[in-house]
């Protein structure tokens, strides 16, 4: 379990101190995939670096499995870091080492005998599907392949935790999907607790169990992904859930409601069924849905007629058909 208690971080700069994190309290349970989302500059990268003390917090405690990292001696801290893997947006592979040598690096540091290390690397190459590239150098690999090597390297010492700092932000959508699936698989089969830092809601939506929304150095909201997705409480969460829907605020008239598609069948024509069966004409203000393997993902913002009886009919149809929605003010 990772516990952050009253964590703050200020950087000194020429124009006075800059606050990157303010009084952060978070608990990440074992076996979870925990997402941390925020706009750029919100402090999320600093936050993840505080977990393994790459950044030393100005105040507060980082407690992992009951041990406070901020009170550890340098040697203990280095030891501790070997049980926390980390991957990055820029992959950060050693350019002068080939794939196998990269995966063996953390094992060299942990003084694992070479033969054993190479065997472990081979297992991991199988896991990430790169056995045929074992002798390749990073410059010969694509972005997705580099991230797979980075994942294998991060898992070499069998860490309990894996920190992912914008790990898919430099990748195209298809590669992003495959990397996210790999992370989910690692979480499921090896029980590795994963912390995912991202600015993209779809990454959270795809793999995370819980999410913390961070805004101007503070935690704005924490909760189950489904809950935050369907009923965001904070303004920032609302913006992240529907990044393009801001312009609909000024639209007056009937009540607005938000439909959330979270993996239901995309073969079901939900909106036309709603209109035909409840006999309520609705206005689509915003839609951002996509089909992933036959499942609908995304959101739709609908406006109901002024007549409250018609609106009520629409709501009862949605309830009766088990469609996830929330009322917007």
């Amino acid at each position: 379990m990772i516990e952050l208690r009253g964590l703050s971080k200020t950087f000194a700069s020429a124009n006075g101190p800059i606050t990157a994190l303010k009084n952060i309290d978070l608990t990440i349970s074992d076996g979870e995939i925990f997402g941390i989302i925020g706009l750029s500059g919100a402090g999320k990268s600093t936050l993840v670096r505080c977990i393994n003390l790459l950044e030393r917090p100005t105040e507060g405690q980082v407690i992992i499995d009951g041990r406070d990292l901020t009170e550890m001696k340098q040697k203990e801290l280095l030891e501790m870091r070997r049980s926390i893997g980390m991957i990055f947006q820029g992959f950060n592979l050693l350019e002068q080492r080939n794939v196998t040598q990269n995966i063996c690096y953390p094992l060299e540091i942990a003084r694992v005998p070479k033969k054993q290390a190479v065997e472990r690397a081979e297992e991991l190459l199988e896991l990430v599907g790169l056995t045929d590239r074992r002798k390749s150098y990073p410059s010969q690999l694509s972005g997705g392949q580099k991230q797979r090597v980075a994942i294998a390297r991060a898992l070499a010492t069998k860490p309990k935790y894996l920190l992912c700092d914008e790990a898919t932000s430099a990748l195209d959508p298809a590669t992003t999907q495959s990397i996210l699936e790999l992370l989910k698989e690692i979480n499921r089969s090896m029980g590795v607790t994963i912390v995912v830092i991202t600015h993209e809601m779809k990454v959270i939506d795809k793999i995370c169990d819980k999410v913390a929304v961070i805004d101007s150095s503070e935690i704005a909201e924490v909760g189950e992904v489904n809950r935050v997705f369907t009923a965001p409480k904070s303004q920032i969460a609302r913006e992240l859930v529907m990044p393009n829907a801001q312009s609909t605020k000024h639209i007056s008239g009937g009540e607005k409601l938000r439909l959330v598609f979270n993996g239901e069948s995309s073969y079901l024509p939900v909106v036309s069924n709603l209109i035909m069966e409840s006999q309520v004409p609705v206005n689509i203000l915003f839609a951002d849905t996509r089909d992933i393997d036959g499942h609908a993902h995304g959101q739709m913002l609908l406006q109901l007629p002024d007549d409250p009886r018609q609106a009520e009919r629409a709501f009862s149809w949605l309830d009766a058909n088990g469609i996830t929605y929330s009322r917007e003010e």
Partner: protein
Amino acid sequence: MSEMFFKLWDKGLIQLGIWETVYMTLISAAVAYIIGLPLGLLLSVTDSDGIHPMPVLNRVVGVIVNIFRSVPFVILMLAVLPVAKLVVGTSMGNKAVIVTLVIAAAPYVARMVESSIKEVDKGVIEAVQAMGTPSLTIVWKVLIPEAKPSLITGAVISTVTILGYSAMAGTIGGTGLGQIAISYGYQRYNDDIIWVCVVLTVIIVQILQEIGMRIAHRTDKRVRQ
């Protein structure tokens, strides 16, 4: 070609000059690296954005390096001759010249090494720190190997600079192509001797450059092969 050239050639003085220039340069470069490499590593590691910032030490070493770097070699050479006498027992001849070359080149090498090490991607350093690598291990296992192609390129540039310095050493009693150009060419009005030395120096530099760059290229795994 003048009579003088054939006389020198027959006596084997030109051939000896080439050899002396090459060996003085290479020995000086090697010793300059023995001193300059650790200094350069120290400068990059203890810098404010290095892996182990030590501002005071960094500033002190930096200032010393800059003092040596800012004195022109012809002057520095004369100024450090007493040191040469202290180290090799004489302030004359090639032994003394090598000492002055090393003193002049080591700070230069330190700066070359520092800039190569600073080229190593900060993200890679962060990644290996996240894996729990102690600072000294980062130097051996990450900084030097990752900077290797750049370090080799830097060594070639440093060696060529030292070769240039070695020619000036002809004025204080060193031998080699510089001394031949000065005493047989310039002082006895044989322009062709000067030009022979120019051409030979250019050829030596080209060979050094070519060999060095090939090694750098071959060791660089970032280049698709």
